[in-house]
C-alpha cells in the first residue's frame, strides 16, 4: 500500500493526529526548556508599535536594529519580539509607510525583558521624502513571497471611481485580475473567484461586493491595512486554492474622541471612535450608506439598477491586562437592488459577521497566542419577477469558526507557530433547475485543521518558513483528511539581491456554482462538497520562484514566476445526459505566469508598475479551454506626484488583453420532441430558437485599457483635517466592453468618462 494511503488511513482513525500532536508537544517542551536555560546571558526586547495620535496598533511595521542586518516585523496587532539579544545597548528603529520612522535606544540586561514601545507620528506626503509605497515587511524575518501589503497610502494613490477601495487598489498589483471595471470580483493567478479566502478581522467573508461591484463592502476609511497572499501561503491558512486576503480594520482612538465623515458621488460615510473606560481601550463605529444612486446610473452604461446598500463596522479593543487584549468586531452589510421594471430582476444580499478574539502574551513575551471565535452569515437572493429567462434563486452560508494560533519565538530567533481551527459551514440554496423544478437543499460542511510551522531565522542570509497543515473534514460522517505541506524560502545573495521560492498544497471544499457560458454572473451560488456526496476536495499545488533586486531605497524590482497545477477541480459535467449522470465532475486545471513589480520614487514622483503574464486552462470532459478570466497580459502603471505642499496628483493606466468568451456560430429551431413518448404529434412540433455556440471560450473580447487621474488636496483647519479628492475615470473615454447579451445583442460597456469627487473631514 502506498505510504500516502497508509498515512491517510491512520489519519482517518485519528492515530496519526494524536501522534503528531504528541511529538509536537515534546519538541515544543524541549526547545522551550533549552531556550530558557540559555536565556541567562541574553535578553528579550518586545513591544508594540502604535499611532502616536490615536494609540491604535500599527500592523506590519518593521523593526530594525541599527548597524546590523537584524530585525523583525510586527504582526497584525502591532506586536513584535526581538529574542535573545546579546547584552548591550541597541538603537531600534520602527518604520512603516505613512509614518515618520522612530529610533529608540534600549538596553538589554542578562535574562531580562526590555519593553520598547513605539508611538509613530503620521507622515504627510512630502516633496522629496523617500517613502516607499507598498513597502514589504522586514525581509530579515519574512520570506515575503507572493505577499502584497497595502495600506491607506496605497489607497490614496489609486484613482478609483467614487471613492478609495481596498479591492481596487489590490487589483493594480501583478497577478490580481478583474474582468471588468464594475466588478470587484477578483482572480488571483488563474484561480476562480471562489478560490480566494477573505478575512476581515479574522471573520470569513463571502461575496464581498456591493451593487454592480463598483465598491467592495469594505469602506476604505475604516480599513487599516490589507495583506494579500497570492500563492505559497503558510500553514496557518487553508480552505482555498488560490489566495488569502487578510483585511484589518482600524482600532478606535485610545486617546480622545474623534471621527471622520465624508461623502462621494453616491455614498455618505461616518466614522466615530474614542477611548473606553479602561486605559488603552477603545471603540470604533463606522458606517456607509448609498444615496443619489440615480446620479451614477446616468453615467453607467448598464442596467438601471437603483443602488441601495449599507455597510457598518463596529470594533471594541479592550486592554484587559498588560499581557491580555480582547477584541470584539462586528461587520454588517446589505444590498437591495429593487428595479421598478417588472422585466428587470431584483437582487438582495446581506452579510452579518461578529468575532471575538483574545491576544494573550505568555512567559516573558516571546510566546503569544490568539484565540478567536467568529460567526458569519451570508444570504443572497435573486427575484426574476417577469424576466423571460432568469429563475428565482437563493444562496446562504452560515460559517462558525473557532481557532487558536500561537507563536513561540526561540532564543535563536527562530519561531514556532502552531494552531488549531474548527470550522462548521452550513450552506443552503434554492433554485429552479434546468428541468424547471424548484429545489431547496442544505448541506453542512464541518472542517477541522491543525497546523504547525517553523520559521528558520538564525542564519543571516536565509529565511525559511516550513509548515504542515492537517486538514480534516466531515468528522462525524465520512471523514476525509488531507496533508498540506508548505515551504517558503528566501535567500539574500547580497544586501540588494534576494532569491525566493515557495511550495504548498491546498484543498478546498466550498465552491460557487455558475454557468461558464454566461459572460457575466451577478449571482453565484455557494455549494459545499462534503465527502458524503462522493466529491474529492479540490486540490492545487503552488510552485513559486522569484527574485528581488533593490537598486536603491527608492527603486526596486520584484519578479515572480509560478505554476499552479490544479489536480482536482469540480465543475459542470459537460456530458451529463440524465439523472444518473452527476451534475458536477472532477476536472483539472493549470495556471502559470510571470509577474514583475517595479516600485520607484524620483523626487516627488512615486508609484509602481506591475506587469503579469498568465495562462490558465481547465479541462472537463476531455475539453480543454481557457476560463473566462484568462487574461494573458495585464499592465498597470501607477504614479503619484506631490507637486506642492498638501497637493498630490495621481494617475493610473491599465491595460489588459482580451478575455475569452464563446462565440455564436448560428441559430437553429430546436424541437423538444415533447410528444415522442405519447404518440406521433412530435412530427409537426414547432421548434424554438436555440443558439449554436462555437468552440468553448475560443473567442477573445477586445483589449481593455483605461487612464484615470486624480488630484488630492489635504488641508488642516484647526483640529480638522480635510481631504478633497477629485478623479476622472477613463480620461479618454475608451469603450471597454463589459457585457454582451446573446439573446438581444445588447452590448454594455464599462465605465465611460466619469468625473467624481470625494470629500472627507477628520477630527
Amino acid at each position, binding site marked *: 500500500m502506498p505510504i500516502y494511503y497508509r498515512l491517510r488511513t491512520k489519519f482517518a482513525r485519528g492515530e496519526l493526529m494524536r501522534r503528531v500532536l504528541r511529538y509536537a508537544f515534546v519538541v515544543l517542551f524541549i526547545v522551550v526548556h533549552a531556550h530558557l536555560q540559555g536565556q541567562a546571558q541574553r535578553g528579550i526586547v518586545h513591544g508594540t508599535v502604535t499611532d502616536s495620535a490615536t494609540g491604535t496598533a500599527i500592523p506590519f511595521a518593521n523593526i530594525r536594529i541599527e548597524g546590523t542586518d537584524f530585525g523583525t516585523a510586527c504582526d497584525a496587532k502591532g506586536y513584535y519580539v526581538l529574542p535573545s539579544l546579546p547584552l548591550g545597548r541597541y538603537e531600534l528603529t520602527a518604520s512603516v509607510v505613512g509614518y515618520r520612522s522612530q529610533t529608540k535606544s534600549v538596553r538589554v540586561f542578562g535574562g531580562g525583558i526590555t519593553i520598547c514601545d513605539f508611538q509613530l507620528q503620521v507622515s504627510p506626503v512630502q516633496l522629496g521624502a523617500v517613502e516607499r509605497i507598498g513597502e514589504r515587511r522586514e525581509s530579515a524575518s519574512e520570506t515575503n513571497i507572493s505577499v502584497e501589503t497595502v495600506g491607506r497610502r496605497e489607497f490614496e494613490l489609486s484613482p478609483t471611481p467614487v471613492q478609495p477601495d481596498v479591492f481596487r487598489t489590490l487589483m493594480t498589483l501583478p497577478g490580481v485580475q478583474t474582468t471588468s471595471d464594475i466588478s470587484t470580483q477578483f482572480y488571483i493567478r488563474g484561480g476562480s473567484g471562489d478560490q480566494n479566502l477573505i478575512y476581515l478581522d479574522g471573520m470569513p467573508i463571502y461575496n464581498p461586493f456591493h451593487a454592480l461591484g463598483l465598491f467592495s463592502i469594505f469602506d476604505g476609511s475604516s480599513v487599516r491595512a490589507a495583506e494579500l497572499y497570492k500563492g505559497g501561503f503558510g500553514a496557518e491558512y487553508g480552505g482555498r486554492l488560490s489566495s488569502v486576503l487578510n483585511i484589518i480594520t482600524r482600532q478606535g482612538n485610545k486617546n480622545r474622541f474623534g471621527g471622520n465623515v465624508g461623502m462621494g458621488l453616491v455614498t455618505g460615510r461616518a466614522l466615530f471612535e474614542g477611548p473606553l473606560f479602561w486605559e488603552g481601550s477603545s471603540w470604533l463605529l463606522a458606517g456607509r450608506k448609498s444615496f443619489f444612486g440615480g446620479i451614477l446610473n446616468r453615467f453607467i452604461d448598464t442596467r438601471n439598477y437603483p443602488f441601495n446598500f449599507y455597510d457598518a463596522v463596529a470594533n471594541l479593543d479592550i486592554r484587559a491586562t498588560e499581557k491580555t487584549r480582547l477584541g470584539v468586531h462586528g461587520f454588517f452589510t446589505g444590498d437591495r437592488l429593487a428595479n421598478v421594471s417588472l422585466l428587470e430582476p431584483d437582487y438582495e444580499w446581506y452579510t452579518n459577521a461578529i468575532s471575538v478574539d483574545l491576544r494573550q502574551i505568555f512567559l516573558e513575551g516571546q510566546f503569544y497566542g490568539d484565540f478567536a471565535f467568529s460567526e458569519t452569515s451570508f444570504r443572497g437572493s435573486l427575484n426574476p419577477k417577469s424576466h423571460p429567462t432568469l429563475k428565482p434563486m437563493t444562496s446562504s452560508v452560515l460559517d462558525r469558526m473557532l481557532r487558536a494560533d500561537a507563536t513561540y519565538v526561540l532564543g535563536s530567533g527562530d519561531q514556532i507557530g502552531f494552531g488549531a481551527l474548527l470550522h462548521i459551514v452550513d450552506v443552503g440554496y434554492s433554485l429552479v433547475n434546468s428541468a424547471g423544478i424548484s429545489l431547496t437543499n442544505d448541506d453542512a460542511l464541518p472542517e477541522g485543521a491543525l497546523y504547525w510551522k517553523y520559521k528558520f531565522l538564525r542564519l543571516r542570509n536565509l529565511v525559511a518558513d516550513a509548515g504542515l497543515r492537517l486538514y480534516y473534514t466531515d468528522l462525524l460522517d465520512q471523514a476525509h483528511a488531507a496533508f498540506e505541506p508548505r515551504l517558503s524560502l528566501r535567500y539574500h545573495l547580497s544586501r540588494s539581491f534576494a532569491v525566493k521560492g515557495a511550495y504548498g498544497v491546498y484543498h478546498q471544499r466550498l465552491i460557487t456554482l455558475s454557468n461558464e457560458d454566461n459572460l457575466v454572473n451577478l449571482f453565484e451560488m455557494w455549494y459545499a462538497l462534503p465527502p458524503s456526496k462522493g466529491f474529492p476536495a479540490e486540490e492545487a499545488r503552488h510552485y513559486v520562484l522569484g527574485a528581488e533586486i533593490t537598486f536603491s531605497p527608492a527603486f526596486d524590482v520584484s519578479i515572480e514566476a509560478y505554476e499552479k497545477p490544479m489536480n482536482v477541480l469540480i465543475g459542470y459535467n459537460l456530458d451529463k445526459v440524465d439523472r444518473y449522470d452527476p451534475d458536477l465532475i472532477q476536472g483539472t486545471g493549470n495556471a502559470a505566469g510571470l509577474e514583475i513589480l517595479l516600485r520607484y520614487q524620483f523626487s516627488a514622483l512615486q508609484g509602481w508598475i506591475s506587469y503579469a503574464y498568465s495562462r490558465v486552462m481547465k479541462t472537463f470532459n476531455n475539453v480543454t479551454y481557457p476560463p473566462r478570466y484568462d487574461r494573458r497580459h495585464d499592465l498597470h502603471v501607477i504614479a503619484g506626484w506631490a507637486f506642492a505642499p498638501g497637493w498630490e496628483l495621481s494617475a493610473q493606466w491599465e491595460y489588459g488583453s482580451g478575455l475569452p468568451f464563446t462565440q455564436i456560430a448560428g441559430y437553429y429551431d430546436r424541437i423538444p420532441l415533447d410528444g415522442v413518448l405519447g404518440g*406521433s404529434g412530435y412530427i409537426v412540433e414547432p421548434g424554438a430558437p436555440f443558439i449554436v455556440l462555437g468552440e468553448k471560450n475560443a473567442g477573445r473580447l477586445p483589449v481593455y485599457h483605461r487612464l484615470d487621474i486624480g488630484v488630492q488636496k489635504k488641508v488642516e483647519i484647526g483640529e480638522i483635517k480635510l481631504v478633497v479628492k477629485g478623479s476622472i475615470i477613463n480620461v479618454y473615454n475608451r469603450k471597454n466592453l463589459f457585457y454582451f447579451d446573446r439573446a438581444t445583442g445588447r452590448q454594455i460597456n464599462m465605465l465611460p468618462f466619469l468625473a467624481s469627487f470625494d470629500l472627507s473631514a477628520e477630527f
Partner: protein
Amino acid sequence: MRKIGSIIALINLIILSSCEQPFEPKTKYVPKLVVYSIIDPRQSDMIVRLSHTYDPPGYDPDEYRGPLLVPDASVTLRSSSGETFTLAETTLIVPDIHGNLFVSAYVLKQIKLREAERYFLFISARDYPAVSASTIVPAIQYITAESVLQEDAALEICHCYQFSFTFYAGTAPKGYIARLWIRYSVDTTSALDSIEVPYSIEKQGERILATYPQLDRLADSQEESLSYTRDAVTWVLEQLASRVGDPHKIRIKGITFHLLLLDQYLYNYYSVAHGFNDPLTVRTDTPDYSNIEGGLGVFGSLAHRSLSLKLPHSLLQRFNFVDDQ
C-alpha cells in the same frame, strides 16, 4: 517642465492609440443542416424533417425572416443488411416564428423497418455540408405480466400488477417508459378513452401524491421489471368515478400496458432537452445534444409493444362500473 511634457506626450500617445477595436460576438457562420428523424414503429411512414441553421442580421433569432426549407436534398436510408431507400421530398405544415408555414420533409411511405437492425441516414443538399447519422432500432424480446390483480382480493394473492420485459442485447437501447392505461368509454356512444395508472400513490395528509412513470434509463441487465400498486389502480378508478359522476355510464374495456424502448441517441436528446430529465439537478444551464455528424438535431429510434389485460370483475362491481372487457 520636461517631465510634464513627457507625461502629456505619453497621454496623447495613449489617446491616439485608443481607437476602438471591433467586437465580433459571432464566429464565421457556416450553414448546417438540422435533421429530425425517428424510426418509430407506431408510424406507418418514416419522416425526416429537414431544415437548416440561420444567421439573423442581429442577435434576435426572430429577426430571421427567410425560409428554412431544404429542397432537392438527397436523403438516403441504408440498412446494415444492405437495403437502400431513397426518401421522397414533401412538406409539412409547421408554422414558425420566422413567418414560414412549411418545413421540408422527406418521406418513406408504408415502410416497415426492422427491429435490431442498424440504419444509416445520409443527407446531402446544395449549399450545406453533407450529414450522416446512424441508429440501431431497439428490439423488445417479450413482455410478461408476472402478476395481475386477482378476482378475489380477500385471498391477497396479489396486490399489484407486476410486469417484466427483456430486450435483445445487441440493440443496446438506453431508455424506456412503461405506462399502464385503463381503457373505458362513457355510455355506448362515446369514443374510447383511457386514464393512466400511476406506479403508486402516497397519502400526505389530505393530499394524494401519485408517482407516474417517467422516461428512465435501463439498468445494465437485459431484463427490467416494474410494478403498479393495487392502491394506485383503485385510486384511478375512484378518480374516474368522480370525474364522470354516474358510474353506471362507465364501460370498462380493460387495462393495457405500453412499453417504449428508446435508443441511446433519442434518449440522450430527449433527456438533455428536458432539463436532463432530472428533477434534482442543481444545474440551471440549457446545453444541446446531437448525433448528426456535421449537422444538428437527432436521428433516433424506438420500439413499442403493448399487453392488454382484464380488470377483476369484482373490482368494477365495487365501483358500479359496467364490465365491458
